[in-house]
């Protein structure tokens, strides 16, 4: 009989305490969720977000790689999902004694220069870019070709007039992207991956594509040579002779072999 009493007393005491605590939690939670108070913080002011005040961690000598830009940076079309970014990291890792860390792949499918300029305001992105000392940039193809969608749905590739209109503005924005990257990270090496013509084996499209891309690459090259610690890696020739062998099924993005060749170029330029 005594043990009964003991069981009852402890259970009742513990249960009463637990019930009280849980009921308070319930009341408080319900109040907070059903009648939320505005926090009075201006949420648009991402410029003074706490993350922007964090200084990058200073690390030992070694490659800290970030890829940023469009689907090429992301690696779309590579069946292994690595893209030139991770392939570059792998090649560097095999080829040097230095430690190689691949921080982030910030590539987003369909990214244009205009969108990228907007994204570069994001504190998280800026933080990652500050951490890097090698930035791999691929941008511009979507400005000129709208993601290759034009080809897939059977419409004509951008005609000469449209290309002439789009190109100078896009090239100007490329310059702004490079300036912004440089201001975010004053010391990192920036490698810009030049454009190739994915339509090289389609006679009707080759000529105007070639012309536009050559023009783009020339302007990009001129702009990059002005900058400090920047390189343009040409890829035009890699896909010129035999595009089918190095392009993926969508006939726009490189395949695994194509990305590997781009990565080799990048590494050659670094050494």
């Amino acid at each position, binding site marked *: 009989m005594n043990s009964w009493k003991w069981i009852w007393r402890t259970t009742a005491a513990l249960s009463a305490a637990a019930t009280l605590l849980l*009921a308070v939690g319930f009341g408080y939670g319900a109040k907070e969720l059903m009648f939320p108070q505005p926090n009075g913080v201006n949420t648009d002011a991402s410029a003074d977000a706490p993350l922007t005040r964090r200084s990058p961690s200073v690390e030992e000598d070694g490659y800290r790689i970030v890829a940023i830009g469009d689907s090429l940076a*992301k690696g779309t079309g590579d069946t292994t999902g690595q893209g030139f970014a991770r392939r570059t990291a792998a090649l560097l890792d095999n080829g040097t004694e230095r430690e190689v860390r691949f921080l982030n792949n910030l590539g987003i499918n369909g990214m244009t220069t205009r969108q990228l300029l907007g994204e570069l305001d994001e504190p*998280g992105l800026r933080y990652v870019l500050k951490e890097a000392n090698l930035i791999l940039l691929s941008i511009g193809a979507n400005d000129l070709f709208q993601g290759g969608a034009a080809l897939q749905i059977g419409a004509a590739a951008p005609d000469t007039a449209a290309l002439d209109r789009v190109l100078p503005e896009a090239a100007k924005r490329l310059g702004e992207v490079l300036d912004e990257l440089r201001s975010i990270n004053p010391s990192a090496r920036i490698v810009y991956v030049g454009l190739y013509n994915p339509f090289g084996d389609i006679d009707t499209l080759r000529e105007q594509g070639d012309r536009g891309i050559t023009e783009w690459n020339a302007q990009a090259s001129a702009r990059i040579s002005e900058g400090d610690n920047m390189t343009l890696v040409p890829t035009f020739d890699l896909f010129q002779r035999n595009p089918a062998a190095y392009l993926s099924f969508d006939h726009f993005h490189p395949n695994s072999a194509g990305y590997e060749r781009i990565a080799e170029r990048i590494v050659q330029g670094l050494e």
Partner: protein
Amino acid sequence: MKRFWSMVQNEVVKIVKKKRFYIVLLILAVMVPVFSYAQMKQALERRDSYGSDWRLEVQQAIIDNQNSLSSDRVPQEWKVYRQIYIQQMQYYLDNDVNPNEPGGVTFTREFINNSATLFIPLMILTIASDLVSSERTAGTIKMLLARPVRRWKVLLSKLTALLMFVSLIVASAYLICYLVSGLFFGYAGWKIPIFTGFVLNGSDVDLTYVQATPQWKYLLMQAGLVWFVGVVVGLLAFMVSVLVRSTAASIVVMMAALISGSILANMASAWTSAKYLFMVNLGLTEYLAGNPAPIEGMTLGFSLAVLAAWAAVSVFISFAVFTKRDVLT
């Protein structure tokens, strides 16, 4: 009144002597280390690919979700979910707050969040489902009712004992979870800020109400909501236990309801009137975490009202049936 409490005492001692509550504790003590270990493995693997900087990891999660938004293969509802996720992660990142700071407290928060709709209700069923039906199976109900006590008082004493154990189960789930996961992740993390108050408008997140809540406060609110769900599930199971003759049938009925709830929550967004079912409304903690409700138009207030209505009806039915029914066997 003193008489009534001695009846409650009788019921509590019966539950303890039947070792149901020990089973609950034992299940928790076995399950939590398993999940803790799995989570630790996962954390170690992530550390391999992102180093020690969580910011890189969160940024990559944002980018990966942004990429999946452009894919045509991703269903529209998932896209909404991901858009919300992106904005919340962005908010954490911008404020330099790790959304998943490892630690026993964070693990407890996550574990309870995942077990609020199924696992914890299941623990409550262990006790609630055989409260009345077992008396009938064992034949002891006759002795119970032969005493000179009104039937409703008999049932009320059982109900009171059940509610006492609901509180104990929720509290011990937290306690065991914290104590065990602390062995793996450390016992720190009470003061880590967690953002609450994300108001969702479709795929947009309204940030004007977002508050940084210390994790202990978050746990308190979460526990309260889980407790409410537990009470409702307990009352429903209690009703089933009154209605159904065998304990096994009673457990199966409630299990089926709970499981159908978690299935419906995943696919019922087109069938909007499903939101009046109690089992779709059990995810109260999702509102706290700022996750979208399974069906559009559901809010915390709505879910609380639906659950309260179901609970009230089930209490009414329990008493109506128990006081009227003839006991033959």
